[in-house]
């Protein structure tokens, strides 16, 4: 009796979770339609459909396929990547406030990207496909640095010490970035400033292509590891007792999380807080089981970034507010709320 009850509860939860995923996906589709319509030149829904099926005017096709679609696709991709990256970090470090932005990993990736951009004569000459790789090197180096600085023998990684270390390392990286930005010529300066503020600047298909392989490989990999993450969540000792290679799994998952964060930073600069807000809301909506929580995080992250991007483009037409700023305005209060809620 007891057992059937438990199973039915699990079953109900799974159904509820799948419903939530469906609703989120529908919301993304709605935001997609709104976002496609947002901009200096408006397209009616009918024109939009016509253009999508190849029956629009040349101008409409240009706007849709060359400007708006790639940008929206990128928003969706980086939103999903950042949120899943945050979910993995929160799981691995068992720390509610972990996020690639707060831990300084975005700053590390950004510093490397900036170094590379400043060495190329013009911003367009930089090889786009290398950007995520370069960002990954910077992010991985930063992650290793933070890990080793926060690690203490016999105590391991204390959650708060990890966050404080991350905050400090991020401050150091930004100081280095400031020194670099001031040496740039005004043209590059404007570019770097916008990029650092978290603007989705790579608004063409080649950026989508440079981002896609990372996400297509790493996202399913992490979701595939959902069961492992459930076990890791039980604590290191229990997980070891259940037969998990804790250190090895942690390392692989973190590497994947760093890769996801880094590839997003390469095209979007420093969009923070997505990795924090996405997983938290996901946990609330579908519960802590990673099989549902990870996809829900991905969808919520995508929804958050596409919404923020649309808002950013809408407020100050025809100029725009960088997406990262809009996300920070939504995300920082949420972080503070979480901070006030959690016990020390």
């Amino acid at each position, binding site marked *: 009796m007891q057992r059937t009850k438990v199973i039915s509860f699990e079953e109900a939860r799974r159904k509820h979770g799948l419903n939530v995923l469906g609703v989120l996906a529908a919301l993304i589709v709605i935001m997609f339609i709104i976002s496609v319509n947002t901009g200096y030149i408006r397209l009616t829904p009918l024109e939009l459909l016509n253009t999508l099926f190849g029956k629009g005017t040349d101008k409409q096709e240009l706007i849709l396929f060359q400007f708006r679609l790639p940008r929206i696709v990128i928003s969706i991709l980086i939103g999903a990547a950042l949120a899943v990256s945050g979910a993995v970090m929160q799981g691995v470090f068992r720390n509610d*406030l972990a996020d690639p*932005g*707060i831990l300084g990993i975005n700053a590390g990736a950004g510093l490397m990207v900036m170094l590379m951009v400043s060495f190329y004569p013009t911003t367009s000459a930089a090889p786009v496909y290398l950007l995520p790789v370069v960002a990954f090197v910077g992010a991985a180096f930063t992650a290793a640095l933070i890990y080793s*600085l926060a690690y*203490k023998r016999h105590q391991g990684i*204390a959650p*708060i*010490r990890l*966050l*404080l*270390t991350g*905050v*400090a*390392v991020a*401050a*150091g990286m*930004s*100081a*280095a970035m*400031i*020194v670099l*930005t*001031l*040496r740039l010529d*005004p043209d590059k*300066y*404007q570019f770097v*400033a*916008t990029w650092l*503020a978290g603007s989705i600047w790579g608004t063409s298909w080649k950026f989508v292509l440079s981002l896609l392989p990372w996400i297509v490989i790493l996202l399913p990999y992490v979701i595939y590891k959902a069961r492992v993450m459930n076990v890791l969540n039980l604590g290191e000792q229990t997980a070891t007792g259940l037969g998990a290679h804790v250190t090895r799994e942690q390392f692989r998952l973190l590497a994947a999380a760093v890769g996801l964060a880094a590839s997003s930073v390469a095209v979007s600069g420093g969009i*923070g*807080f997505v990795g924090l807000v996405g997983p938290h809301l996901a946990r609330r909506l579908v519960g802590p089981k990673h099989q549902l929580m990870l996809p829900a995080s991905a969808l919520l992250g995508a929804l958050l970034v596409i919404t923020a991007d649309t808002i950013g483009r809408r407020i*100050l037409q025809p*100029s725009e*507010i*960088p997406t*990262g*700023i809009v996300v*920070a*305005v939504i995300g*920082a*209060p949420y*972080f*503070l709320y979480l*901070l*006030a*809620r*959690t*016990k*020390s």
Partner: protein
Amino acid sequence: MNQQAVSRNGLDQRAEPLKLRSRPWAATLILIGGLIALALGIAVSVSFGAADIKLSVVWTAVFHFNPDITEHQIIRELRLPRVLGGVMVGASFAVAGAIMQGMTRNPLADSGLMGINSGAGFALAVCFAFFPNLSFMYLILYSFIGAGAGAGIVYGIGSLAKGGLTPARLVLAGAAFSALLSALSEGVALYFKIGQDLAFWYAGGLAGTKWFQLQVMSPWVIAAIIGAIVLSRSITMLSLGEDIARGLGQRTGLVKLAGALIVLILAGASVAVVGAVGFVGLIIPHLTRYLVGVDYRWIIPCSAVLGALLVVGADLTARMINPPHETPVGAIISLIGVPFFLYLARKERREL
């Protein structure tokens, strides 16, 4: 067992009379030596630059000023205000940090980490954007208000938390709130195309310091530092714990209010002149406490001198790294401050 013994030992030490743990002779030595070093630092800073000027010329420029000589002009109009600004800002940030650390008993307190600098910064970004012709007097005033609002919000959110206000939580609330404010400031800067004006200011620099800024700022700073010294005995008591302070007959609420006002004036005025220079208020009070002991009657004046020395030194370094280009002072101090912060975060055992 062992741990108990340690904690009892710790209590015993705290209960000992203050005199035993403060070192007035060390403090006197620091004050005298520090002032001499500061005078030397000022002299070097004034004579060093794109045009090297002999110290004897500096002397005559200050005491027998002749407006027809270019070198005298450079010294009077560019280098003197710059170095004096450094002195004032360094002393302010350090004293503000010392007061905060003493009052809140929070080893990680610093105006840069607690939302004060970014609050003032945001207020200034708004001023630059909407009232570009505002006089410096009003800029400083708005900077105070921004600093106060920033500190109030960070402190409020930190204390709302279950389990009360811990140093780590305060730092995290400060970091998140600063992220929010800099996002907003960046938004304002991008929209009003004042990015590059604000950028250097954000990085922290003394290069643009003018006499009139010092004139507006100095009364505030001097009054606040004197106030801090007057308050120092009460801060020492507060640093022993609120209960002890109250037991000794202190009106803790009043002292805290006065302390908070002084911190806001010092940090607000400094941010208005040099921008977001962090970590001075973190490093210097720790160093001073290590050198002179726990009595804030010594800590505050010594912090002022050492803070001034740090900023003047950092500014000199910033000019020497890549001449004739300037490296922001804020970045230089961050490079010292970040490792120091990491060290403190590792060392702190009870709270973290």
